């Protein structure tokens, strides 16, 4: 086992060379080289072309839908996710464990399944759609459908981020606030919200990042009309189907840049959360 001095601290434990070699090799082969190929493909185009493709009205409309719906869905999940996490942590009610377990369902359920289920349920004749249709609310094949799908996908991120932070709030803090005459609303705003805010922001960012790139659960319910209900990942696939590799690469690069920004934001929020002691062993 050759261990290069200066790069790695000496250790009596064996296996560094082997394990870092396996990790590095496969990371490069499976993740980094393919991603580099995308960047190179887009970079091989003249800058003017890149700009033209990236700012094409159809592309811009798709960004607006993908980002807008993901943002709104993350906000909805921020509110309802907090309420759900609160109910699960603070209250005991029949079925609480079951509810806690099914929160993870969107993580485990293949997106194609949630996609066709949402599209069918919210279709005008569907289980929920036929209640909404008389009210003039059209969910399936509109941007509202995109919103519903992204809400489903993002929910567990918020709940699972906020739950541990809520658990760690010391009862004595709330009791102290109450004994000093704070109303429950004040306790929530001045004690609880500040304590869970980093975790809530992390959950929001994770849900947002997932929502921006989401494909499977959205395309069945979205209707996929160009300029109206077409998400960016779908536009990439359409370009690929037309053998427009350059167009697909440019849009892919736009999405990749957004992913990097979201990753940076999430790492930053995680650091904030850990610093504030909002839960987590790391």
């Amino acid at each position: 086992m050759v261990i290069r001095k200066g790069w790695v601290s000496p250790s009596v434990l064996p296996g560094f060379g082997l394990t870092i070699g396996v990790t590095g090799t496969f990371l490069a082969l499976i993740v980094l080289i393919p991603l580099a190929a995308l960047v190179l493909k887009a970079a091989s185009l003249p800058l003017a072309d890149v700009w033209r493709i990236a700012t094409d009205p159809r592309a811009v409309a798709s960004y607006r839908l993908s980002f807008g719906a993901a943002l709104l869905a993350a906000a909805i999940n921020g509110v309802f996710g907090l309420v759900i996490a609160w109910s699960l942590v603070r209250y005991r009610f029949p079925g609480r464990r079951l509810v806690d377990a099914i929160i993870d369902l969107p993580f485990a359920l293949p997106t194609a399944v949630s996609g066709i289920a949402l599209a069918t349920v919210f279709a005008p004749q569907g289980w929920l759609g036929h209640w909404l249709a008389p009210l003039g609310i059209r969910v399936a094949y509109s941007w509202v459908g995109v919103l519903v799908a992204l809400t489903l996908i993002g929910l567990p991120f918020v709940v699972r981020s906020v739950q541990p932070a809520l658990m760690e709030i010391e009862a004595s803090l709330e009791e102290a606030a109450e004994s000093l005459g704070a109303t429950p609303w004040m306790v929530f705003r001045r004690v609880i919200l500040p304590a869970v805010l980093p975790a809530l922001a992390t959950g929001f960012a994770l849900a947002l990042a997932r929502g921006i790139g989401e494909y499977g659960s959205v395309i069945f319910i979205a209707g996929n009309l160009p300029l109206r209900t077409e998400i960016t990942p779908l536009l990439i696939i359409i370009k690929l189907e037309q053998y427009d590799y350059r167009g697909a690469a440019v849009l892919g690069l736009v999405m990749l840049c957004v992913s990097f920004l979201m990753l940076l934001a999430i790492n930053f929020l995680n650091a904030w959360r850990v610093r504030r002691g909002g839960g987590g062993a790391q």
Partner: protein
Amino acid sequence: MTASVVALGAASGAVRRSNPFVRRVLIGISLAFLFVVLLVPAASVLGYAFLRGPGTYLDALSHPDTLAAVRLTLLTAAIVVPLNTVIGVSAAWAIAKFDFRGKQYLVTLIDLPFSVSPVVSGLVFVLLFGAQGWFGPWLREHDISIVFAFPGIVLATLFVTFPYVAREVLPVMEMQGRDAEEAAVSLGASGWTVFRRVTLPGVRWALLSGIILCNARAMGEFGAVAVVSGHIRGLTTTMPLHVEILYNEYDLAGAFAVASLLMLLALATLVIKAANEAWGQPGRRLDRTSSASRQP
């Protein structure tokens, strides 16, 4: 442990003090939201699958194309899950048991596939191996197909499931420290023995959790695989892609029948994960931030 005791104390204290009206309203909102967004769509999968009776359901499942899709999905997972398990455990060992420069960057890079859109995850392989891709002409000359064929499906699935095992195992391995391993080495144990007898027993539940999550995603991946598969019926369609094809052909009963299998997979994953958390690592449930923030 102390944290969990405090948390339990806080929770029970709050239960005693909580305003019954607020309590009812908040639980009501939670349940109503979950009912509409989660429960009804999930239940509808089974409902629509059996809409035309069990006969149609069984016919849809025993259709040759469905069986081919099931086989392809199982085969893909059989390659991807073991490979990513080895890579994930290797990565966790190198990162948790050694100090080296750039460690934090390595962790971020391993997490990268979580933040990349599934469609982009598939796109990169088309740009590498597709007809107009970097290696396209060379591959055609040698009559090798990667994109729109099985290897492409495996590669895209490897990409999207890359972080799962590492991200479950790493924090637990870090918490273990290195003392036990160092003691074992000083007593003359070989590296493999140290891993198997000292490290593995402590991380086995996290490892199991990583493997089942990796497997669920490998079997259920849609976006990335949709890009590289080419949708050749009975040949390059995994179960999620087969669901899409049937749905687009207005064969709702068929689409939902295949979907119900994937739903079973998801439920089994959740049950194993819950059992794992309840029995495998008491106390870990209360400390899930790190786990949650790492999810896809």
